[in-house]
């Protein structure tokens, strides 16, 4: 059974530190490299930072699932159409959220959840590490 960790933190930028610490702990156990972990931290920060810009949230809900040599992070439940568009569409030469996520993690998906949606990002361990 895949390991799953669920977090609910206040909807503030300061609370992202807690999420990074948890991601770091799990990533370290999976022998993620420092580069991989920093990419994961940055991707999560950008996604949740954008969510804080576009959503009126009381708290951020994030779950981390360990699957072999990859980490899957699910963040939600979001309702903002602008955030959804930013995650999914890149307007060309812009280093926007979509481009940043695409470069930093291996997969980005939007999963509908009733009237809301979750954003799922997946980071695979770089095999040259350890």
């Amino acid at each position, binding site marked *: 059974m895949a390991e799953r960790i669920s977090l609910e933190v206040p909807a503030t*930028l300061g609370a992202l530190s807690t999420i990074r610490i948890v991601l770091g702990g799990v990533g*370290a156990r999976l*022998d993620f490299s420092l*580069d991989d*972990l920093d990419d994961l931290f940055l991707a999560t920060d950008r996604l949740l930072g*954008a969510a804080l810009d576009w959503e009126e949230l009381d708290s951020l809900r994030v779950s981390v699932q360990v699957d072999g040599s990859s980490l899957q992070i699910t963040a939600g439940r979001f309702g903002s159409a*602008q955030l959804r568009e930013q995650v999914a569409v890149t307007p060309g030469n812009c*280093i926007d959220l979509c481009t940043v996520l695409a470069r930093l993690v291996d997969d980005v998906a939007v999963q509908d959840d009733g009237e809301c949606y979750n954003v799922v990002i997946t980071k695979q361990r770089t095999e040259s590490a350890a």
Partner: protein
Amino acid sequence: MTGRDERRVNDPLDLESLPGQARHVPDDDEEEEGGGAETASAGPAADREGRGKDDSEKLDQYLLRRYHLHGDRKAREQLITMYLPLVRSLARRYASRGEHFDDLVQVGAIGLIKAIDRFDLSRGVELTTYATPNIVGEIKRYFRDKGWSVRVPRGLQELNIRLNKVIDELVPKLQRSPTINELAEAANATPEEVLEALETSQAYNSVSLQASPNGESGEEDAGLIDYLGGEEEAYDTMEDRTTLAPGFAKLDKRERYILHLRFFEGLTQSQIAERVGISQMHVSRLIRRSLEKLREEIGDLDTPMPPRSSDDER
């Protein structure tokens, strides 16, 4: 200044001996302008004997009178020089908080100069008594305005500095980015401590240009300013799509270059660090800062939610 004089001036907590360098503390009336400075710097060997606090106070008062009553700038300069050890001593108390020691001394020196300039001769207090709270106040004000945005324990700051070195050593050795466990082993720390130390690096607001890239304060280390150097040709040859991207005008050339390498060339942070000649942790900070600038710039073009209150900011 002789070698012995130099040693004494730089010796913290040796305050009493410093003014005691005066072979003779003249009355205000018997000395020509500039004579005080000359007298006070002479004869260090003779002063140790029979010169104590009284002499230093007399010299202080003499120099303060020279400055405040006669506008003698040399007397002011000599007071500053004499009391620099006090500044160093007080600055050292705050040296573990992540700021470069020399920066703290400079800030403390501003407090000292203010104390000398504002000193009231009629109040009959010692300069040390008046200067100490001024120096400490200036240093505290500096910490309030700059430096670590949150209080980071000394142990974590030191580990952070060690990690910077360890990363720079391990990347070429392993030919890849190290794992947390490898960093922990090399830095003689636990993986949890490594993660915590890496997290603290995000709490740092500013980097002194005089600080060495690895965060140490050794005088032999080159400062960051030495790495800035001239313009890198490659900065100008990046593709137009990068330079034309929205918000890029707000970034300097090096920030644009690093974002280009990361997001268009696909280089890892370690590879960028090697190419640009800075540490991986510095690359990480620069990418974060640049993306934040872009977000703010592009965000201005959109209409996001109203800004969060300041206490939300980390």
